[in-house]
């Protein structure tokens, strides 16, 4: 039996793209940030902060407040991360 040529795109199969991924951020005595994965592996140390911005949204529903940082890691890797200002958790996300 031949399967139908095309099947409808069901909205219950929608998958999110670019969801924030949780990371850990630690500061040493000199204030240098080190970013790590939840499993304990290190992503890298922050060499420079290129840009910072803040998003406050949906205050009428569930308040969203994020402080974004665009950083350069040691070795030159570019990363965008943010801190959820409500929970204090850190995440990485594509800009």
């Amino acid at each position: 039996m031949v399967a139908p040529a095309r099947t409808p795109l069901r909205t219950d199969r929608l998958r999110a793209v670019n969801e924030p991924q949780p990371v850990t951020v630690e500061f040493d005595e000199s204030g240098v940030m080190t970013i790590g994965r939840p499993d304990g592996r290190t992503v890298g140390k922050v060499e420079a902060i290129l840009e910072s911005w803040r998003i406050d949204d949906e205050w009428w529903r569930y308040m969203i407040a994020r402080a974004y940082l665009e950083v350069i890691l040691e070795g030159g890797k570019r990363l965008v991360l943010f801190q959820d200002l409500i929970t204090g958790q850190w995440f990485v996300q594509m800009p």
Partner: protein
Amino acid sequence: MSRSSTSSLAACVWIPLFPLRCEEARQGGLANYPTALLAPDTTRKLWQVSSLARHAGVKPGMTVSQAIGLCSSLRLIEPDPVHYDERFSQLLSTLNEVSPVVEPSELGLVYVGIDGLKGIYGSTEAIIEAIRQTVQPSDRPTVRLGFGLGKFTAWVAASRAKPGEAVIVPVGAEKKFLASQPNSVLPLDSDTHRRLRLLGLRTLGALAALPEAAVTAQFGALGKRLWRLAAGRIAEPVEGRIAPEPIVAALTFFTPIGERELLVHSLDQLIARALKHPRRIGWRVQAVRLRAGLEGGGSWLATHLLKDPTADAGRIAAPLQTRLEQSPPTGAVERLILEFTAFAPGTTELQLFARDAQAAARAGQQRALQSAAREIRMRVQGGRANLYHVIEVQPWSRLPERRYALIDYEP
């Protein structure tokens, strides 16, 4: 010899939401769910929605995110314009079996000239029934048929018909029939409709009751045409399509050849040459004939009627190559002649859905994409590869994860 022809008596065949009906015919059970077709030019918006989706408040033109908010069980379908054009071409071909005068208007809307058909079928009802039989069985419950003098009367009759039924306007009764019809049947933009409403004109009868000069003064040349349509003064005939004459390409060999490979190669050359013929542009080949003049005076002939008309050289060549393999010419070939003898409207020429070349190209790209996706599925992970299509959900959102979503891509 091909020629154009016209017919003043018209039958209008209307299958509303034709693309959606094509999808329902292709995917059994789809009609039981609220469904919507995505717009062909931007997948962010909806193009056509089923009645179940309408009940949930979903409307054409809505964004995907709005529609999902209203109907979480909505099934979204990517448009397949090439398939719709092919289905519509099939409809035109079968209607041509009833009448030689067939004029496509837009996807799902066709006018059929029926002058002189009473002599064949006996009555108007029998002609209408013959037309109904040409429609795919899956479309018969939804097709609406109208009969009248001129295309406009036939269209209004079809628009008033119940699904699966016909409205016949006898010749001479056009004015009376049209008078009670709402102005929405007129081919107008929304602004002119609004102006007519503001003037208190709600029916064609009310419009026709005004002096022609007054309507012309208010709406210009458009108003003149509207008044004439409303008053039944215009009966635009159905204009049949002009089918091209047969296209012939021939090759004479200085040394007669018998090798099959050479014949196949020559056949490919002839097909390529015939396809490039200016008369072929906009038409797909439906019937093909290959003749060979043999050394010593004999001949060889192969004819083939393509079930699916095509302009693809490979698909035209395949049945002829099979014939060359299974029953080759009995002698060396001196001359090979290829003829395209019948044609069907080409999808790019029809451009009913894809009205411009760019849109037609998009449709072709989509077909190629679907083919590539099938190939990937076959090659990767034994057909279990997951393919996704990126759709815009809230592209304006400041939150990056809200802007796009992945949706299963199943060509």
